[in-house]
C-alpha cells in the first residue's frame, strides 16, 4: 500500500522524505522539529493512518508488538537544546541516546540518573516508557525528573507543558502525564530533565540479607538483589561509605558491578508494594527464571526466561496481582502467544479513555500500546 498523497505531501512540505526502510511499517519519517512531527500527525489523523513512534527500537515490544502505517523516528532530534550547567537542568531532543547524554553530563560532574544498562536507548524512549534507573530508591523515579515536555499531539499541534525549572506548580502536570504514556498522547519531541550532581564516590558492598540492609541503612542509592547475590550501592565520601557499610557488617567489593540488563527472550517486570517484595521474589524464583534483579524498597523485580510455559506465566501473574501488583510483559519474543502485556487493566480506564480521545481523537498515536487496548 502506498501512503495517500495528502500524507506524502505533508511530509514533503515539512522537508521530509519518507523512507520505506526500517521496522515493519509501511513508511518511516524522521522529523527534525516538533512542528514537522505535528504536521505529519495532522495529515495522518485526517487519513486515519496509524503512526508508531520509534526511538532506538530496543524496547519496541513494551505494550505489545504492533505494526503501523507510518513509523516516526526520533533519530534526527538528538541534540542538546539548552544546558544551563549551573541550574542542573538540560533540554535534549528525544532521540538522544543515553550513551551520548551520560558521558557528556558526567564530564561536568552531573548525571541524569536515567537507566544506562542499555546504552542505545533514547531519552524519548525511556521517558515514554517511564522506566527508572537503579537510583530510584534514593532519588525517586524518572517521572519526577521530567520537568518540561514538548509534544506533537495526535491532533497535530505542538504543545509544551511544565517548565525548565526544578520547582513548578504552574498548571496541570503534562510532563508527568506524558512520562510512561508510551506515545499514546503524541510524539515526544524534547524534554527538560532535572539533573543531579555526581556523588564524590559510589561503591558497591555485598550483603547477606538485602531486606535487612534496606531496613537498616539511611537512604542508600540502591539495594539490589540479582540471582547472583545481594548488594547495596552507597554514595558519599570514601570515609562515609566505609562507615555506612560497616554499620551493617558489609565490606566494599571494588570488583562488584551492578547486574547488566536482562537479555533473555522473555522479560517480565514484576511490580509490587515494596513491603511484598520478598514474597514476590519467592514467587518468581519458583518459576525458575534464568536471571532476575530485585530492587528492595522499590518493589520491582525484572526477570528473564529463555522459555516459560504459558500456564506458568498465567499463574505467576495471578499470584502477583493477588499481592496488589502487576506482572508486565516487556518482551516475549513470540514465546507467550495471546498474553496481554499488562494483565488486569487499572480501575480508571474510563478517564484514561477520555484522555486518549482528547489528545489523540483519531486514535493514530501508537494505538494499542496502553492497557485496555488504548
Amino acid at each position, binding site marked *: 500500500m502506498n501512503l495517500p498523497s495528502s500524507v506524502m505531501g505533508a511530509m514533503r512540505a515539512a522537508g521530509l522524505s519518507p523512507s520505506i526502510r526500517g521496522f515493519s511499517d509501511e513508511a518511516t519519517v524522521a522529523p527534525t522539529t516538533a512542528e514537522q512531527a505535528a504536521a505529519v500527525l495532522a495529515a495522518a489523523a485526517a487519513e486515519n493512518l496509524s503512526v508508531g513512534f520509534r526511538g532506538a527500537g530496543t524496547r519496541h515490544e513494551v505494550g505489545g508488538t504492533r505494526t503501523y502505517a507510518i513509523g516516526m523516528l526520533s533519530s534526527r532530534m538528538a541534540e542538546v537544546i539548552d544546558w544551563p550547567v549551573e541550574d542542573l537542568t538540560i533540554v535534549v531532543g528525544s532521540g538522544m541516546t543515553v550513551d551520548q547524554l551520560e558521558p557528556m553530563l558526567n564530564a561536568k560532574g552531573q548525571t541524569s540518573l536515567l537507566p544506562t544498562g542499555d546504552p542505545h536507548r533514547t531519552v524519548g524512549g525511556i521517558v515514554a516508557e517511564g522506566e527508572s534507573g537503579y537510583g530510584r530508591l534514593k532519588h525517586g523515579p524518572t517521572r519526577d525528573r521530567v520537568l518540561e515536555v514538548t509534544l506533537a499531539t495526535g491532533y497535530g499541534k505542538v504543545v509544551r507543558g511544565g517548565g525548565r525549572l526544578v520547582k513548578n506548580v504552574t498548571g496541570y502536570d503534562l510532563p508527568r502525564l506524558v512520562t510512561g504514556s508510551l506515545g499514546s*498522547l503524541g510524539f515526544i519531541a524534547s524534554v527538560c530533565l532535572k539533573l543531579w550532581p555526581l556523588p564524590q564516590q559510589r561503591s558497591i558492598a555485598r550483603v547477606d540479607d538485602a531486606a535487612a540492609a534496606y531496613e537498616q541503612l539511611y537512604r542508600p542509592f540502591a539495594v539490589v538483589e540479582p540471582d547472583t547475590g545481594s548488594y547495596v550501592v552507597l554514595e558519599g565520601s570514601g570515609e562515609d561509605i566505609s562507615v555506612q557499610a560497616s554499620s551493617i557488617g558489609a565490606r566494599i567489593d571494588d570488583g562488584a558491578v551492578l547486574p547488566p540488563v536482562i537479555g533473555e527472550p522473555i522479560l517480565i517486570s514484576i511490580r509490587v508494594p515494596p513491603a511484598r517484595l520478598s514474597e514476590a521474589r519467592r514467587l518468581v524464583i519458583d518459576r525458575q527464571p534464568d536471571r532476575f534483579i530485585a530492587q528492595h524498597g522499590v518493589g520491582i523485580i525484572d526477570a528473564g526466561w529463555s522459555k516459560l510455559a504459558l500456564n506458568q506465566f498465567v499463574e505467576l501473574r495471578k499470584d502477583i496481582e493477588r499481592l496488589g501488583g502487576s506482572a508486565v510483559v516487556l518482551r516475549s519474543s513470540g514465546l507467550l502467544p495471546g498474553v496481554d502485556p499488562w494483565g488486569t487493566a487499572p480501575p480508571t480506564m474510563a478517564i484514561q479513555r477520555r484522555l486518549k480521545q482528547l489528545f489523540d481523537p483519531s486514535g493514530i498515536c501508537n494505538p494499542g500500546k496502553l492497557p485496555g487496548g488504548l
Partner: protein
Amino acid sequence: MPLIDELVALLGPERVRHHPLDLAVFAKDAGVTSGPVVAAVFPETAAEVAACVKLAVTHGVPIVPRGAGTGLAGGAVPIDPGLLIVVTRMNQIHEIDEIGRTAWVGPGLINLDLSTSLASRGLHFAPDPSSQRASTIGGNVGTNAGGPHCLADGTTVAHILAAELVTADGDIVIVGSDAPDLPGLDLRAVVVGSEGTLGIVTKVLVRLMQNPPNAATLLIGFSTIQDAAATVSRIIASGSIPAALEMMDRPMVEAVEAFVQAGYPTDVAAVLLAEVTGTGQSVADTTSLIESIAHSNNAASIRVATDSAERALLWKGRKSAFGAVSQKAPDYYLHDTVVPRTRLVEVLGQIYEIGERHGVEMLNVFHAGDGNLHPLVAFDANEPGMFERVRAAADEMVRASIEAGGTLSGEHGIGIEKRDLMPLVFNEADLDAQARIRDAFDPQRIMNPGKVLPSGSRCFDASGARL
C-alpha cells in the same frame, strides 16, 4: 427539594453550614480573594462526599473542595455561588506500612500532625509548607505544596503514591497504587496539583521518609545578597544537595528578630539557612564543605547548630517569617515565582527596584536552593490606593521573574489569583492541552470551575460553557 434541605437530610444540620456568619468565614482563604458560598458541608466518608457531589450536580451548583483554607491563591474560594466540600473531618491515619514506608491518611489530616504521630517510628512526611501547623494533606495535594525541605526531596507530588478520588460523576476511584509504575496513564500525577478541579481526594497514600540519623543547621550571614546567592550556586554545584537552603534579606531578618529573637545577625544584607542531613560522616563532610564555600564567598558570620534545641531555634526564625510580617503591617501580599537558580541575584535586584518605584515595603524570604522566590509586600489595606499599588508592584515582579525564564508558582498554586497570568507562561495551544486534561476528568466543569486555567483555554470551544 432545595439543595440545602437535601444536604441536611444527608448529613444532618450540624454538618451543613449556611448561616450568613458561616458563609462569611468560608468565603475566603488565606489570600486576598473572596467569593459567594451557598453552603459549607463536612462529610466524613468518601460515600458522603460522592453523595454531596451528586446533589450539587443535580442542582447545577459548582463544587469547591476545601481543606484548612490556608491557601494563598484562591483555590478554595468559589467564583460563582458554590458548595464548599470541607474535608477537615476526614482526618484519620487509616493505615501505616512501616516496611513499605507508606500510610493511607484522610485528606483532612493536618500536615504536621502526620509527621508528629510518626516520630516514634522514625518516619516523616517530607513536604513542610510554612502552613504545616494548619494546612491539610488534602490541601497539600491540591496545590502540590512545597516547603524548605522540598529542595532535596521534591514537592508533594513526589510523596503521593495514590489517592482515592470522588469524580465529577460521583464515582469513587483510586488513582495510583502502592506498587510502582502502575500500568496505564499516571492519573495520580495530574490529580496532585490540580486544585480540586479533577475531583475530590478522600484518602491519600503518602510516601514516608526515614528521619535522618544526624543533622546540622547552618546560619550564615553575608554583607551582600550576591555573595549569599553565589554561595547557594556553589553548594549545589559541589555535588551535595542539602536538605534545605533558605535565604532571608535584611528587612525580613529584622522583622523576625523583633518577633521571636532567634539570634539572627541583623547587621548583614542576607542570611542563608542551610540544613544538612544524613549519616554522621556525611553531615560532617557537607557541613565543612558549606563552611568553606561560605568563607570563600566572604561570609560575615557562620553559626553551626547540631543539637536539636539550637537547630529548632534557628528554624523558628525562618518559620516565623510570615507571623513576623503581620506584626509590622496589618496586611501582606505574597508571590511565589520561580526563576532559574542562576538568575536569582538579577531578579532580586529587579524586585527591589520595582518595590522602590511603587513605594511599597518589601521583605524577602525564599527557597534559594530551588530558585523559588517569595517577594512579600507588607501594607495597610485601609490606606487609600495602597492595594492597587501593591497589586501593580506584584504584577511587575511576576513579569520580571517570567522574563528571566521563570514561572508563576513554585508551590502555592494558580487558583484565581494567577489564573489570568497563565498566558504569560503558556501559549494558546499549551493552555488548550491543559484544558483537555481537565475535560477528561470533568467535562461538565462542575469541579472548582474557573480555577487554574483562564477562560477560553479550550481552542475551538463550541460549548461556550467556560467561565
